[in-house]
């Protein structure tokens, strides 16, 4: 590390500084910028050439001048001091405490970029997490160590849903699975839980909602919050999720916590990335987003999972709002290619007053296969999942048909599907934001709904399961 302060800021463009006549500056190095006013800001090196460095500020460039500004390169990358005592604390999007408490005494300093987990050392996630929400538990099973985003749109209740998941999520004990939830310890004591929350560019109210939600349920004491609100610097948002995940990795893989990471809103993050890319005059990819958006998002989303020999885990629930509810927009599109499925919220269901408006078509959990069935939940789980989704899809199709042709033109089977689809929405998808259904309750609702359909139509559930579980009319 050098103590040289360069006063050679030559150009300023957007969040970028071009510093000339520098020596020995490394790529990705952190630097401190002293403004003519004496204020300090942080930046990092985006490109380092002989005699020039391109520096990206994490805060606004307002007040930075080409003359009188000093740049000091710190000889290290962006690090965060982590400690167990961060639990219960609130930080800014750049990692400084904003809850009025003292600075955290770091137990360790970690590079916020992390390193890729060796795939050979990962443990495959297969522990069923019961969220208490039927559409997730039965159809899009969440698994410990999974990254499962919520694809939402503006105005949809994604925050409420994320808070509900964070509040209710838990792993069933073997005893509970054995007795189908009738007995067994519902509150495991041996495992440690934590929530890490990263907010990027959200409104003050939304940030408050989560904070209050955590406080109300007593979860705040085991939560770490990083909050960058809409009026905070845009570029700071690029660091926020990384701070959150570095903290989560420390809690999970060094202190054995089971960590749920909620990141909201990834759309704002991507927009910040686009802003920096545009300022660098890079060749844009789709819709102006940089060509490396996929790689960049992967360095965030891939920081979830379990590691062989470690007790803790990171389960990631990023939230993103799809511009114009368009799932083919680059942000949801690239996210879907990286994450292990997605929970999709639907405006149509929301308008019908159904909460949570999770639409089975388009929602998916890629890891559910190993977390459903005997020993994990119940033997009829995966068949039920396939049957309900297929039947609902058919029902919706018939509903559309009925709009054109009139209901009278439908045959008996079609009408049964129609009834099924209506009841499915009202009884299965819909549940209150405090309703915490066990997986067994959810499955019995499913069986009850299947009584609407002729038995010959139940091709996805096994016949011995029909025998065992289908209520006799």
């Amino acid at each position, binding site marked *: 590390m050098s103590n040289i302060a360069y006063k050679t800021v030559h150009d300023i463009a957007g969040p970028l500084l071009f510093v000339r006549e520098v020596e*020995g*500056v*490394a*790529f*990705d*190095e952190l630097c401190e910028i002293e403004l003519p006013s004496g204020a300090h800001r942080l930046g990092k090196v985006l*490109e*380092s*050439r*002989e005699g020039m460095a391109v520096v990206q500020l994490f805060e606004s460039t307002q007040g930075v001048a080409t003359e009188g500004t000093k740049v000091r390169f710190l000889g290290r*990358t962006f690090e965060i001091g982590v400690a167990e005592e961060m639990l219960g604390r609130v930080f800014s999007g750049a990692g400084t405490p904003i809850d009025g408490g003292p600075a955290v005494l770091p137990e360790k300093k970690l*590079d916020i*970029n*992390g*390193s*890729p*987990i*060796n*795939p*050979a*050392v*990962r443990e*495959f996630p297969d522990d069923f997490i019961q969220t208490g929400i039927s559409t997730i538990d039965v159809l899009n099973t969440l698994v410990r160590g*999974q990254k499962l985003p919520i694809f939402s749109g503006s105005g949809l209740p994604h925050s409420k849903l994320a808070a509900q998941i964070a509040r209710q999520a838990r792993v069933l004990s073997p005893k509970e699975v054995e007795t189908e939830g009738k007995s067994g310890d519902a509150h495991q004591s041996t495992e440690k839980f934590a929530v890490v929350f990263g907010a990027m560019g959200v409104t003050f109210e939304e940030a408050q909602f989560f904070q209050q939600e955590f406080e109300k349920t007593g979860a705040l004491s085991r939560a770490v919050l990083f909050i960058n609100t809409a009026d905070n610097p845009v570029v700071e948002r690029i660091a926020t999720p990384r701070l959150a995940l570095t903290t989560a990795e420390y809690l999970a893989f060094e202190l054995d916590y089971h960590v749920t990471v909620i990141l909201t809103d990834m759309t704002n993050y991507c927009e910040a990335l686009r802003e920096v890319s545009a300022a660098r005059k*890079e*060749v*844009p*990819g*789709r819709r102006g987003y940089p*060509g*490396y958006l*996929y*790689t960049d998002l992967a*360095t965030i*989303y*891939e*920081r979830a999972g379990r590691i*062989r020999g470690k007790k803790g885990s990171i389960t990631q629930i990023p939230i993103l709002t799809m511009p114009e509810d368009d*799932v*083919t927009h*680059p942000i949801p*599109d*690239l996210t*879907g290619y990286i*994450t*292990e499925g997605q929970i999709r919220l639907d405006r149509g269901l929301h308008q019908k007053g159904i909460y949570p408006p999770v639409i*089975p*078509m*388009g929602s998916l959990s*890629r890891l559910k296969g190993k977390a459903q069935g005997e020993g994990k939940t119940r033997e009829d789980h995966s068949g039920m999942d*396939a049957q309900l*989704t*297929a039947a609902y*899809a058919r029902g919706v199709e018939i509903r559309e*048909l009925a709009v*054109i*042709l009139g209901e009278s*033109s439908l*045959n008996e089977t079609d009408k049964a599907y129609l009834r099924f689809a209506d009841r499915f929405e009202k009884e299965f998808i819909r549940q209150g934001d405090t309703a915490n259904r066990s997986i067994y309750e959810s499955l019995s609702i499913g069986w009850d709904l299947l009584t609407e359909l002729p038995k010959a139509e139940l091709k*996805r559930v096994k016949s011995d399961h029909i025998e065992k579980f289908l209520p006799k009319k």
Partner: protein
Amino acid sequence: MSGSIIKVAGPLVVAKGMTGAKMFEVVRVSKENLIGEVIELHGDTASIQVYEETSGIGPGEPVERTGETLSVELAPGLLTSIYDGIQRPLELIEREAKSAYISRGISVPGLDRAKKWDFAAKVKAGDVVEPGDVLGTVQETSLIEHRVMVPVDKGGTVVRINAGSHRIEDTIAVIKGSDGKEHEIAMLQRWPIRIPRPSHNKIIPSSPLVTGMRILDTLFPMAKGGAGCIPGPFGAGKTVTQQSLAKYCDAQVIVYIGCGERGNEMTEVLTEFPHLTDPNTGEPLMKRTILIANTSNMPVAAREASVYTGITIAEYYRDMGYDVALMADSTSRWAEAMREMSGRLEEMPGEEGYPAYLGSRTAGFYERAGCVRCLGAEDRKGSLSVIGAVSPPGGDFSEPVTQNTLRVTKVFWALDAKLAYKRHFPAINWLQSYTLYAESLQHFFNREVAEDCMSNRDRALSILQEESKLEEIVRLVGTDALSPKEQLTLETARMLREDFLFQNAYDAKDAYTSLKKQYRIVRAILHFMDKAQGVIMQEDFDFAKLRDLAVKEKIAQAHLIEEGDEHAFDALERAITEQLDSLTLTPA
């Protein structure tokens, strides 16, 4: 042999003082010893793509030339390995790094130098050998006999051959070339990844790659030595299909490349394969498999290299005379890696920011597939089938990667999000997909399976096509407007879809269906249609009677009939005949 860095921008490093550097030469970058490859030269300035994270690297640091091009190590020990994009074993990386994370600057050999293999000689001193001839064999795993071949640039008279237990670097043979010089040959050989391995000549593929997946084998068969692609939006089942292929296809060696994909998915493959057994041999699948895992958060340049690393290893086994299948999931990530490097090099972009050479690189990759007559005096045939997954943004097949891939692949398995939403798996759209091998494989199917195998397939396809037309009519005017014949077509198509094409990859019993059984299921469904033709033409026939026939339940269960149980199928066909005949006899 060393220069110094003048610029670092992400995975791209520019160095000066690189006089004499060659294109695609491997270099060691900075004090951290990061692996890089020269991809552009301007005078004495070289642009280098670095295969490891470059943060903390700055101008002035050294760049060492190695004089070698990026190559893979080829010798016994490849099978069952799990590599990163540049052939570093992931398990060794873990041991070396002493951490669950991949740290950089780690240098580990691709193959174990200490392990001894029993080398059995196939030639003796005095024999004349040419490139590609088998010098001897090593039982690499219980499934695969590794054939140690004379390197491509060697040949002559065998002076000495050392059978017995050897390490891969030991000399196992000495060959005197035509120039009179003696060459020592070890089991370990190297091959540059960007150059296809040579063969005598390519031949037209004539046998199918049997996958056990009904829609693929029956409707859109792929040839051994063919090239195919699976494009589809996320969630449509690309990875599940690729994994199913890796598990059940009847190739002898599998190379599976996870290119820029999910870490947990690679872990799934890693943990699952050792426990799964090969349906053809009963041995663990891992014994015939090589995995290359470059997850999406691993350095982007190594992602670009990973497909070449994989295909070079695959070609090596092809040259031994094996049927090799390579799965690349997903080639879109590979193309994106190219785009990213191209952008950093400030090249003029082509379509959607992809470099102008996207098409030629894609074609070059898929052309490495094929059925070949291997080098060597002995008449050995090998094949390399390549199946690439493509992840088009938004599921839009008109994008450049899909289009460039379609130009060079002969099998197109189009995944469809709508089918996946309905939980119809494999979600392969039967209207969009195609195979260009149907004709060249016709002979095989008609000879090996049944005479009317291909004609049944054509019929099934046309029924499904007819269905989509009829469905449009139904959508406008309802089912009642259809003639009984058309209703029967719909009913048959529905059976084909639900009872034949639908297949559960997670169900051990359903995941694999032999060609013969596939044929029998289709035949039974078509038999039902034929028999019903007469029945429905009766006056005032109530179509619901046909729909409610008990035998339809049996057809739906036909995919669960044990392999090889021909009697069960005969019985099924008899039941169909009987029940439909009974409908004729009842007076209307």
